[in-house]
């Protein structure tokens, strides 16, 4: 077995040193009734690298890869071009096969990268500080709600109808057990998000308002008024960003007064991967930092006065505080954070702004082209790289039909909000730098045919 270096003579010699007659002697504490006699029945035995590769390749071939089709899906996961050097760097064994940096003297590589990532994310989101990552955007969003509860000592969170429905679902699941009160709403196929409704609902029991920016339908709204209204009632504004590339074009939530900004970092450097692993972003103002969840890396000096980095403010965390910790999170998503950080370093500010422009202009052109198709109406007047169309027919069967033709047309609101009749004709379409003019034309003519 290629992953096991011990030879049979090694094993025997080692048993001799231990003073055991057989390996079974080392399992004496396992009750005899629970010990299996041999390999578990019904499972195959070990296999060669070639055989395993064949098996997995066959399974992979049963999927339609995004790169093999005209592709327009978004809604919280985006297909962007990832530069080759990103993947090269995250596959370096010193990053790939390291552990959480508990021994900082021999983990400065990971720690410095975490510090750079935190600094990049804080700037991108417009906040003072960011942590070294969460699992993903949806779990980061729930953590932000619990943090707002700790900060304000209030238990009612108001969630915008424009928040990703999976993020809402996660919060609803958790709130059932924690007793947090959630106010939720469905989105409407209207040109503007629900900012005014949210403002009207803020009261003295409100811990936070949670708003997605751009929202699930792609719409962009100024958060400043919402932040002012929340702060007037001593509540926090939590902003959720699922497409960080947008922040190369539009103002950061932190600049508009958001107290906590969380997000999904997947679209920079990570890839689609059927939904995971992704990388949760979590940032806030400096005064809230001691209520933050997750790992934080900080600058310090070593015994010779040289600059170095360590994990810090650990008294918030489970391994020190146990049941009093700010969160139970331990392993997060550092390798994905590295991928995102490397991609941001390659882009730099100039590159990020160019990438954002290409996405936005591409989306404008696609939206205008698709709106020309009879039976298609553009719902969203503002958007970044993702917009919502209202079709003359229910969108979900349309998406299925186009998938049969090898076109991945977008995310139907029927898939995200099953049973919500008003939304059934909605289709979210995402356009990135990977989308070609030809892809848009293919989608336009296929839509025309299906809707005729």
């Amino acid at each position, binding site marked *: 077995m290629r992953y096991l270096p011990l030879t049979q003579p090694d094993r025997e010699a080692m048993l001799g040193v231990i003073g055991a007659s057989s390996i079974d002697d080392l399992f004496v504490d396992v009750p005899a009734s629970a010990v299996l006699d041999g390999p578990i029945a019904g499972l195959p035995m070990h296999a060669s690298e070639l055989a395993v590769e064949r098996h997995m390749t066959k399974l992979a071939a049963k999927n339609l890869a995004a790169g093999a089709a005209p592709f327009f899906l978004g809604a919280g996961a985006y297909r962007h071009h990832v530069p080759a050097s990103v993947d090269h760097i995250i596959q370096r064994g010193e990053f790939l096969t390291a552990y959480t940096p508990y021994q900082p003297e021999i983990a400065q590589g990971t720690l410095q990268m975490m510090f750079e990532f935190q600094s990049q994310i804080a700037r991108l989101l417009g906040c003072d500080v960011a942590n070294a990552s969460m699992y993903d955007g949806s779990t980061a969003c729930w953590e932000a709600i619990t943090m707002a509860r700790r900060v304000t000592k209030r238990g009612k969170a108001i969630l915008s109808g424009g928040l990703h429905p999976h993020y809402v679902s996660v919060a609803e699941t958790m709130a059932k057990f924690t007793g947090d009160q959630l106010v939720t709403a469905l989105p409407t196929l209207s040109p503007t998000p629900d900012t005014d409704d949210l403002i009207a609902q803020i009261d003295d029991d409100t811990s936070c308002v949670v708003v997605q920016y751009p929202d699930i339908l792609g719409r962009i709204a100024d958060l400043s008024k919402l932040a002012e209204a929340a702060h007037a009632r001593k509540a926090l504004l939590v902003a959720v960003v699922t497409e960080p590339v947008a922040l190369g*074009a539009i103002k950061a939530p932190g600049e508009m007064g958001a107290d906590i900004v969380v997000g999904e970092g997947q679209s920079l450097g990570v890839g689609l991967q059927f939904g995971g692993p992704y990388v949760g972003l979590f940032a806030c103002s400096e005064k809230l930092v001691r209520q933050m969840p997750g790992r934080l890396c900080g600058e310090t000096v070593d015994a010779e006065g040289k600059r170095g980095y360590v994990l810090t403010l650990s008294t918030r965390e489970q391994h020190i505080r146990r049941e009093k910790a700010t969160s139970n999170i331990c392993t*997060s998503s550092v390798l994905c954070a590295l991928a995102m950080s490397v991609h941001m370093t390659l882009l730099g500010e100039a590159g990020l702004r160019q990438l954002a422009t290409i996405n936005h202009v591409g989306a404008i052109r696609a939206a205008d082209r698709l709106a020309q198709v009879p039976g298609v109406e553009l719902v969203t007047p503002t958007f970044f790289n993702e917009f919502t169309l209202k079709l003359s027919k229910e969108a979900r069967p349309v998406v299925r039909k186009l998938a049969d033709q090898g076109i991945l047309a977008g995310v139907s609101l029927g898939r995200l909000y099953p049973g919500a009749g008003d939304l059934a004709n909605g289709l979210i379409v995402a356009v990135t730098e990977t989308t070609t003019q030809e892809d848009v034309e293919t989608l336009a003519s296929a839509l025309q045919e299906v809707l005729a």
Partner: protein
Amino acid sequence: MSTINQSGWRPTTPEAGEAGNLSTFTGNRALMLDEALIFEIGSSQTTGVDFGEVPAAPSRLGGLERNAEIGLPGLSEPETVRHYTRLSRQNYAIDLGLFPLGSCTMKHNPRLNERMARLPGFADIHPLAPVDTVQGALEVIDQLAHWLITLTGMQAVAMSPKAGAHGELCGILAIRSALDAQGQQDRKILLVPTSAHGTNPATAAFAGFSVEDIPATEDGRVDLEALKARLGPDIAGVMITNPNTCGLFERDMKAISDAVHAAGGYVYCDGANFNAIVGRVRPGDLGVDAMHINLHKTFSTPHGGGGPGSGPVVLSAALAPYAPLPFVEKQGDKFHLVEEETAGEHHAGTFGRMTAFNGQMGMFTRALTYILSHGADGLRQVAEDSVLNANYILRSMTDVLEAPFAKYGPCMHEAIFSDRGLPEGLSTIDIAKGLIDEGYHPMTVYFPLVVHGAMLVEPTETESKATLDQFIGAFRSVAARAKNGDPTIKTAPHFAPRRRLDETLAARKPVLAWKAPVQAEAAE
């Protein structure tokens, strides 16, 4: 003790001989290269990506254009590759050597796993793609689920949890849901041993439970009689790690489960240490109701410097009805994704969704690749070799370090030592830092809390006998230096990229993000 350096080669250290006092112009020492921050070497105008012509059009951003500078430095591609390559060389890693972090199972990460996860059919598919276009992905999840259920002897598995602690949360929410369904809302206490990983009590609290301690016996196990005495109508269940964090198998696990069940509670098993028993013992045979499996431990997906992990949770028949959404179901020859929409028909008891999308697919492909490579026979050998390696270290060290449980019998996959007997002023941390100078990542230190100055050594099955022999030589040498009060060990490491770092300063005056240095004139 031999240094086990058969080739006779001796490392030349930066402090060797007279040259130790030399300084260099750059501050570097040959291959030991310091690297500045991207903020100090990059600029906002530099980019390492070419886009061709950037189109222009009037924007539709609602007047929210980001005009102010963001402050993101860029580097060209060669500078980027060099920056991160230099950083990487300041890390210890499994690829470099033995990484005996107890409870973390730092085993070899096969590169076939990486290659398979990058097949476009897995890496480049959208989580909301129509299910007909992702049948192969759903089949991977289904196959992995089948293996995990079979290896653990359980009824079902929830695949979506993102890491170990998220898996714990999944199991605990399933327990809460089952109790609530029986009208047992008053069961609000979870019993957790002091030796448990910190995530256990943190998870219990995150899910609204309070936590009480379970006493331990002298030989490092749960005290069954004390546990039985505490069971009652307020107890929701227990969270027990098995093998436990002292590296010992909980001999009474089945009796514990039976007692907890008889008292109306449930048994959560922390599966962090499943590597020791995979293929040899099925937790389902021990009465466990829920157990998370760290794919990034037992099933070799890389730790990546702190994740991503993946924490599927196997469930007993009693808890399976409450499993979270989504999950994969096979009907005929087609795979379906059961989400909120169809849960009502098949799975009305679900406690809901724990994360967006479908779990850590990239980890599933890696874990399945690993499992198929090892097969049922190979996985069993994994458990046996990991236990053999740990016992070999245990028995090779007991004359130099106190091993508090060694007199009671063998350990499982990890050996535990204490710092008792070291002279005043020297402790576990010094042995750990001494091992760094010897070229090893230290063991887990000061955990579990029940052993004084704990040193928890988990070699895993990845290590050869020669590697273990060299490590034992180094460990003995460092322990002997500590026992003899060698002052140089107090200041170790001497040869790492950094000396000991000031963690108190980092916490007292947190610097968590880079800020441009203030110009001297401006500051005055």
